[in-house]
């Protein structure tokens, strides 16, 4: 016993799935971009971070998680001091207070998915 699926239906389903996959990928990129832009902007305006250090901030995926921070050891100690402070500088807490930034990025990603009919 079996049933036959017309090839044009399979093609349509495959096309539909590809469109959704592309929309999901684009939404992820959009969310990364949103977070990165907002954090870099905040860092550039912060006296402890500044534009040079802000330009080193990046986002990436690793171990099924999205990370944001400074990649590479070159600016690590500077970024650590800016984030956690020392006897001269107050801590900025920039990387630990991203609730609003993340919520905004999630909203933008969801709007993108909705606009593509994938949500």
């Amino acid at each position, binding site marked *: 016993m079996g049933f036959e699926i017309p090839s044009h239906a399979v093609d349509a389903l495959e096309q539909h799935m590809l469109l959704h996959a592309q929309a999901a990928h684009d939404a992820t990129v959009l969310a990364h971009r949103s977070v990165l832009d907002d954090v870099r902007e905040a860092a550039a305006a912060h006296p402890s971070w500044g534009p040079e250090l802000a330009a080193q901030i990046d986002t990436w995926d690793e171990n099924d998680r999205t990370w944001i921070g400074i990649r590479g050891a070159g600016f690590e100690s500077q970024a650590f001091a800016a984030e956690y*402070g020392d006897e001269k500088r107050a*801590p900025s807490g920039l990387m630990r*207070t991203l*609730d609003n930034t993340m919520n905004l990025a999630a909203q933008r990603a969801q709007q993108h998915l909705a606009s593509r009919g994938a949500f």
Partner: protein
Amino acid sequence: MTAGVTPSVAEIETIGSVGFILAEEAALKRHVSGLTIPRPRSLPSNEVPVWYRWPDGERAQQYPFITIDLLDITPDIERQTSVWDLGTDPSVFEGTLYDTDVAPGQQPVVVGAGQRVGQYFPSVSSDSMPEIGAENPTTGYRVENYKPVKLVYQITHHATSAQDDRWLMAKFIIDVFPPNPVWLSVDADKTWRRMERLSFTNADTQETTETDKRHFRKIYTISIEAEVPVDTTVEVVRASRVHVDLYDRTHEAREAVDHDSSSEHHIAIGEFTEPQPAP
């Protein structure tokens, strides 16, 4: 509720009426204070001092010490969008019963759950506390709701010896910020506030300008639940005049409820029904 409330109630006592942030920060400082590192009998045991930010250079730097830094005040989206009704289910403001029979200068002792009696909540009015949802039967004040926010703090303990560092770590992890939930007793309004330990960072390797000293730093990032009022009372005054309209009971015409008492009234006296002679 804030600002000048006159003339039926007293002026705000800005020193005594501790408000938003000040109340939580004072509670937080009290929460991390009082640690005394045990020493051999030959050495004095000093209480670990607590500072807001790194202490000034003029102060004699005594290690170990603890610093408190406010990082952020952020909307608590989860609580703001939850269906939790603060008026009927005030779980955040679960009352704390204090033993008020304490000597002057001593901290009140928590003896169990009870009715909230403080003045903050988060008003800074020195008058009676407003009630959520329903009017206070005495004052008639009420507030619609509060906006939940989170205060994010960085708490750091600094030490110059590994022994002190480890002792402080043990105390912090077991007693000061144990696994969630952690509750902070806010003396200003006698409430318990939920705290979350968001992260722990080992910063021993951080270089400092004090290059001759080994510097052990452990950093705890925490959040504290707080509220800001949606309503703001600018002024409360007694009614200076009462306007009463008299209507014929059988006539349906009425002035609007919010009509201007000083403008012309539209219900003419001629529309009143003639009084009927008594039978």
